[in-house]
């Protein structure tokens, strides 16, 4: 495990999956799924925000969204295979006309439902009842807030986002989210605002809890630290700012074999807005499908064949294995 302070070693920058697989081999590791307990459903690229680091390249003008037919197929799969957890993401998933159908039906089938909720979508037309909708369906809300200060948040997510996010958090708190003993879970997500790795999760969570309460009276349950993936819009930023080589080198130098066991690709399958399957949301955005010998679409979903599958990798995988690791549930290793 590397220290958070300057490391005086060097490795060349990498840009291929071969080097990631070689790195795993050097530690006697290979990347295979362990189980499939989560179906991560990306309902499309439509979003009310245009964040500078977005790995989906999502925004208000994107038209690629999941149809009702595909959503119904997703629900059939959850029902048939009794999927334990449904993790709904986008874009802003709430903007998809089938979003509430997916939540209602998944909950009716007994699945735990997580929604990647960007907070500001509450202020879009006909979305102001979202806190009540989440509460009524016992949804676990996971919301991005890159920092507890306006400057950093707006720099990443757009002007005015911080102020709206704080107001949305207040409304979620009023609905019972993030309140002790309510059972309504509100987790926040920290992304570095730039080309650097996240701080230790427990340490920055303590800062967020203290500062959000002190400054705004806001409470929440947990903070996930997520590393920015060197793909799509964040990769464009890295290239524009001349940080690509430096950032990739940092990811490689910070490779932590202890993260591999807990990587999210080992227990989830990701499905895109067309119904195609992937090892994770990042592979989805790179159009890197499941290994060719496996089922490729939600219609062919087969948890037995998917459970021990070989994971498709790329240079971006170094993003999930750097330092304390990174997953949709935050850091995956300690120390």
């Amino acid at each position, binding site marked *: 495990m590397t*220290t*958070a*302070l*300057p490391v*005086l*070693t*060097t490795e060349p920058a990498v840009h291929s999956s071969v080097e990631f697989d070689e790195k795993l081999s050097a530690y006697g590791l290979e990347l295979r799924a362990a189980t499939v307990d989560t179906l991560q459903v990306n309902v499309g690229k439509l979003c009310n925000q245009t964040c500078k680091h977005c790995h989906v390249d999502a925004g208000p003008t994107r038209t690629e969204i999941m149809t009702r037919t595909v959503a119904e197929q997703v629900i059939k799969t959850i029902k048939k295979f009794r999927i334990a957890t449904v993790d709904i993401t986008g874009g802003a998933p709430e903007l998809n006309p089938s979003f509430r159908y997916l939540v209602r039906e998944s909950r009716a089938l007994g699945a735990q439902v997580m929604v990647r909720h960007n907070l500001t979508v509450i202020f879009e037309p006909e979305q102001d009842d979202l806190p009540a909708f989440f509460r009524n369906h016992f949804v676990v809300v996971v919301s991005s807030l890159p*920092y507890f*200060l306006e400057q*950093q948040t707006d720099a990443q997510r757009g002007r005015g986002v911080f102020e709206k996010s704080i107001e949305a958090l207040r409304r979620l708190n009023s609905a019972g989210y993030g309140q002790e003993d309510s059972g309504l879970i509100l987790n926040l997500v920290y992304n*570095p605002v*730039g080309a*650097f*790795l*996240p*701080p*230790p999760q427990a*340490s*920055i969570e303590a*800062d967020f809890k203290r500062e959000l309460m002190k400054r705004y009276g806001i409470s929440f349950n947990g903070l996930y630290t997520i590393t920015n993936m060197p793909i799509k819009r964040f990769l464009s930023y890295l290239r524009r700012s001349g940080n690509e080589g430096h950032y990739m*080198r940092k990811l490689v130098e910070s490779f932590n074999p202890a993260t591999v066991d807990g990587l999210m690709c080992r227990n989830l399958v990701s499905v895109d807005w067309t119904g195609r399957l992937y090892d994770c949301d990042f592979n989805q955005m790179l159009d890197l499908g499941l290994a060719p010998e496996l089922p490729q679409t939600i219609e062919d979903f087969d948890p037995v064949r998917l459970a021990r599958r070989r994971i498709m990798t790329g240079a971006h995988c170094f993003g999930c294995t750097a330092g304390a690791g990174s997953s949709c549930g935050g850091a995956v290793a300690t120390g």
Partner: protein
Amino acid sequence: MAYYEEGELQRFAEIGKHRPDLYEKFMAWYQACQEEGALSRREKALIGLAVAHALQCPYCIDAFSQSCLEAGSNMEQMTEAIHMASSLRGGAALIHGIQAHNSVNKVSM
């Protein structure tokens, strides 16, 4: 030949080309100092940033600025650390004014 090229920090290991025994001793000491102990990584990173400014070492400033971010510090906190270092430097210069007073007093009526 240019001075203080950004990529030179990545060449640090080249120092070990001569007298590698000394380099290895330094590295072991350096890495041990960076580990979390009675001080947190964040505290150590802020100390590193302050010292880097006092030493006016561009390599150290670059490295420890990023370390501070990766330890969860923000620019307000980092700027306070920089002011701490700078004010100590300023104070250390200013206190020498007493030497000037002493010197002037010595030769004055």
